[in-house]
Every structure is written in C-alpha cells, then in structure tokens.
C-alpha cells in the first residue's frame, strides 16, 4: 500500500495531473442548479456509450456494399453479445438525441444561451446537427433495404439544392448509382469524420462551460446586462459558489448512470431494430422509413403542398439551422426566467406539439398506400356473388383498397368509403372514378363499362343504414 502511494505521488509529481485536473473538477458552480442541469452530461454519457459500442461493433462490421448485410446478420444472430450490442448502439443513439433535445429545451427556457454564453449555444446547435447526421448515417450502415433506399432518398433531397444539387447527390451515392462505392463513404463519415467533429466540438463546448461557468438558475426580475454580468457572476461564485465535484457532479452521475443502465435494459428487452430485406435495389417490395428521430421529417415531406417541395426541402433545414444559430446573437440580454418570457415557453410548447403531431402522422403514414390490404371478406361485402361481389373484387384488384378504407380494411390515403352509398349518387361516383380527383388517379381508360357498373353496385351498397334496414326486413 505504501509503495502504491509512493508510486502515485511520483506519477502525480511528474505529470502534475491533480494540479491540472483538480481545479477543473472543483471549479465553482452557482448554487441551486439541481436536477434540471443533468441533461447535457447525460448526452455526453450516451455519446460515450456510442463510442464504446461503436468501436466494438466496428471490429466485426464489414464496410463492403456486397457483404455488410451478411455481416450484420451475423452480428445480430450469431455473434455472442452481438444482438445486445446493436441494441445498445440503437438505444444509445436514441438517448443521445433525446437528451440533447431536452438539454436544448432547458437551456432555451432558462435563457442560458444569453451573454456571455452565446458561443456555447452555437456550438450546441452544431453538435445537435452532428448528432442527427450520426443517426442518419448510422441507420444507413445497417445496409438493409431501408439503408439503400434511405441513401437514395437522401441523394434525391440533396439533388434539390440549386446549382450544386447534382454534385451533392453524386457525392452521397459515391457515383451515379448506389453501388460498391456508396457504403464505404458512409462508414467513413459515421466512424471517422463526424465523431472527430463531435469530439472537437464537445471539447470546445466544455471548455466554454468552464470558461464562463454554469449559468445560474434564472430569477425573475434579474435581467442579463452584458456590461455588468461577468463581474456580478464572478462575485456570485465568490460568495455562494460551491465545487462542481462532488456537490453538483453527483446528480450528473446519478442521472447519467441511470440513462446508461436504461440503454442496456432497453437493448436487452427489445433488442436492435429488425433488419429489413437485403440491400438489393431490384427488390421493389420496400417500405423505406427513417428511424424515429427523423420520422416527423418524413411526415413533413409527405405533407408539403404541390410546387413548394423543392423550396421547402432546401430552405426549411437551412432556415431552422440559421434561426437556432443566430438566436443568441439577437437575443443575448434581458430576462432569463421563463416566467417573464411567455414567448419562449409558447415556442417550446408549439415545437413539441408540432413535432409530436408530425411524428404520430409519420408513424401512421396515412398518405402511403396500404399494400398489405387483402380482398374484402364476404361478411364485409354482404354478397358472395352478383355485381356487388364482383365490384368488391374489382375494388381490390384495381388498387382502390390500397388507398380507401371499407369497414376498417384498406388504406387511408383517400376518403373512407364505408358509407359512401349514403353520401354520393351513382353519377357522382362515376365522375370521380373516371376523372380522378385531387389525389386520385383517373380510371377512365382502365375500366370496361360492365366493370364500372359492378364497382358502382358495390359502392352504392356501402350504406350501413340501408344494410341494417334490409337485415331487419329479412
């Protein structure tokens, strides 16, 4: 024991480790920070989980377009701990996005981005962008059908950028089509480029946290005045500051470790996201969907009014990024307390409701045809032969059911037709079917007269009230 102590004393003397790290760990923090201040460190904890699990996964991953999918199958189904490791990497990514989001909301609501911490906010916005890029590139590395088609969707979006769009698309694909050069690039982005940037920006972010100190919990009626704030803050720390380690750090550790355990438990219970089919671009049966953190944006892309897309696809992310980056430049002083900043609270609530609504919409994706729809059962049709039954068959075969629901079966793209017989006359239906509509193809060239009649007979019979009456008569 004595020897160990001596060895440490020698090591510490030659490296000056405790002299350098001690003051950093014990830097004074303002009182009363409490549990609201743990989300930044929880993001960092999640990032560490990503680094560790990512490095482990990289020891078995094969960044070859032709073999990555097989490697993933092997990691998931054969390799010891492979399944839980992939799960941890997935839930770690989810935790990182979630914690970064909450951390951002907290710093926004408490006005912590105001003077002198503007750069800290800006670096945080860059880190959030990098985190989302990690999520997107990581999802591609699964290199299943979703991965391949997400790459193409990304290239198509980049292609909408004026002037340089086609170059960007080529750089994303690593050529002019998805192929051998595509995956290696994403692998390099995901494991070298972006993590290197994240390390650098986290370093700067933390450096500035130490430099300017943790923002004190806001008090209503104590606005930030750039002329006096620094002196006032230094005085506050002198009077009431307490060492970060361990007075405040213990909460970061408690919450951070809880998050880490949560990641492992979720990975253990739910496992990683299922791999979809092989990355073969000739398999047309694909339903490309982004992971949950981008699902709301998938909904945005579906809901855009005609003609605005090219602008929105390019300008929306750009504007959102700029607004976030410039926020502290334009609003760097004044009240910090949320009780005096109703607009800030309203913006957060609106953003959460907006993204939440889009997220639910993305989950249900009612705009997508439901290719899993099966022919309607005779019980639903109320006929097993004759024109109504023929019409029901046509309703399925002509693809109507992919977009229209009848008695709970079918897609949701178009109106529910369960009771259409009560709503539209045969003439109105004919016009709609033959000419199409807003979002409906015209079937004029596709239906023979007797087919149209059968379809009309079926649709006219979609009248629950009349069906109930006829049942009673029977």
């Amino acid at each position, binding site marked *: 024991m004595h020897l160990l102590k001596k060895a440490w004393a020698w090591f510490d003397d030659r490296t000056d480790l405790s002299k350098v790290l001690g003051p950093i760990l014990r830097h004074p923090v303002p009182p009363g920070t409490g549990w609201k201040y743990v989300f930044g460190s929880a993001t960092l904890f999640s990032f560490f989980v990503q680094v560790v699990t990512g490095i482990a996964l990289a020891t078995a991953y094969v960044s070859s377009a032709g073999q990555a999918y097989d490697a993933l199958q092997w990691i998931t189904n054969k390799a010891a701990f492979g399944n839980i490791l992939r799960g941890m990497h997935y839930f770690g990514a989810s935790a990182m996005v979630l914690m970064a989001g909450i951390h951002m909301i907290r710093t926004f609501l408490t006005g912590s981005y105001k003077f002198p911490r503007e750069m800290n906010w800006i670096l945080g916005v860059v880190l959030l962008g990098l985190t989302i890029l990690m999520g997107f590139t990581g999802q591609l590395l699964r290199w299943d059908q979703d991965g391949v088609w997400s790459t193409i969707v990304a290239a198509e979006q980049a292609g909408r950028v004026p002037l340089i769009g086609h170059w960007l698309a080529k750089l994303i694909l690593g050529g002019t089509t998805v192929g051998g050069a595509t995956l290696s690039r994403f692998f390099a982005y995901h494991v070298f480029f972006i993590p290197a940037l994240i390390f650098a920006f986290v370093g700067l972010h933390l450096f500035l946290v130490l430099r300017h100190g943790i923002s004190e919990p806001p008090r209503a009626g104590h606005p930030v005045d750039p002329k006096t704030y620094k002196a006032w803050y230094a005085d506050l720390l002198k009077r009431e500051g307490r060492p970060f380690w361990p007075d405040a750090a213990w909460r970061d550790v408690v919450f951070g470790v809880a998050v880490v355990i949560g990641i492992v438990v979720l990975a253990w219970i739910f496992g990683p996201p299922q791999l979809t089919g092989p990355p073969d671009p000739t398999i047309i049966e694909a*339903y490309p969907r982004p992971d949950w953190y981008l699902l709301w944006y998938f909904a945005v892309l579906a809901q855009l009014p005609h003609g605005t897309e090219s602008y929105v696809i390019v300008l929306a992310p750009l504007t959102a990024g700029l607004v976030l980056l410039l926020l502290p430049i334009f609003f760097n002083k004044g009240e910090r307390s949320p009780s005096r900043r109703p607009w800030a609270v309203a913006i957060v609530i609106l953003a959460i409701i907006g993204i939440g609504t889009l997220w639910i919409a993305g989950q249900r994706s009612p705009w997508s045809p439901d290719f899993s729809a099966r022919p309607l059962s005779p019980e639903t049709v109320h006929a097993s032969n004759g024109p109504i039954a023929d019409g029901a068959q046509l309703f399925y075969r002509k693809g109507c059911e992919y977009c229209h629901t009848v008695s709970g079966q079918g897609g949701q793209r178009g109106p529910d037709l369960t009771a259409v017989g009560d709503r539209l006359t045969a003439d109105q239906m004919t016009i709609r079917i033959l000419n199409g509509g*807003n979002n409906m193809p015209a079937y004029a060239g596709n239906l023979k007269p007797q087919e149209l009649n059968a379809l009309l007979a079926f649709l006219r019979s979609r009248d629950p009230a009349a069906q109930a009456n006829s049942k009673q008569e029977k």
Partner: protein
Amino acid sequence: MNPDCGNITPQRRKFLARLSLGLGGLGAAFVGVPVLGFLLRPLLSSVAEEWRSVGRTDSFQQGHTVEVSFQDASPLAWAGVTGKTAAWLRREGDHRFTAFSVNCTHLGCPVRWLPDADLFMCPCHGGVYYKNGEVAAGPPPKPLTQYPVRVRGGLVEILTRPTPIT
C-alpha cells in the same frame, strides 16, 4: 520572457510568423489536394454507359409491364447485389419498348406496378403514375424517368443511366 532578446527586429519577427503560417498552409495544400481529389472523385470521373440485355424480345408480352434488372455500367467487384438496377419494362409494339426507372420522381423510393389497375404506386409518400409514366396523383413533380431501350438480335437492351435525380 524578454521579447527584445536575441536581436530580432519586429519586422523580422513579423516575417518569421508569416513564413511559418505560409509554410503551414503550403504543407496542408500538398496533403490536401490529393485527399480532396480522392474524396471528390465521384464528380471527376465520367459516367460510363452500357447497353445491357434484359431478355429475349419474345419473352415480353405486348401491353404488359414487367420488372427487369441489369448490372450497372461498371460495378465494383465488391458491390454485390447493390451493383444491380431495376426497371419497369413495357412492350408497346413488335419492336417498341418503354423502360421506366423504378425511382419515384418525388424522393426516389421504388414504385410498384399494379397490373390490374395499370398504375405505378410509391410506398413512401403515395405518388401514383399511369402506365405511360405520367403522374396520376400524389407529390411527384414529374413523370417517371425513362431509360433508352433498343432491340438487337432478338434481345431487348437497356442503356444504363445514373439514378435519376429530380
């Protein structure tokens, strides 16, 4: 530290600082040009185009649309299945074929062919096209892209093309 030490004049000090920064930049450029060139090579290399046979002419029925697949122009050895591309081929007449890209012009998802409805439908955001590739419904801004097709020696051939970017 005494800045007046060593008989270095302020001008000389300025020169040395600029020299160091300039040399640093030069070194970075020497390394950077090949690195950037390598990263940007997809923009520098020209696009090869090849005629690929997708089947015998008589294996396609008139008025029918079927999926065909072919190898990309010059797939890398490790591309595996990703070196393939699919197209929807429609026989219009004895020697007339139309080949549509499977990529929806909205955001590139693979459209499906519904033979009874004579429609292409996209699973992502609900784009729909008629059998001639014209937009029937949904968000696509333009018709399905077509590949050049020709008939040679009883074989239908498609000219490989870049993935269409709208």
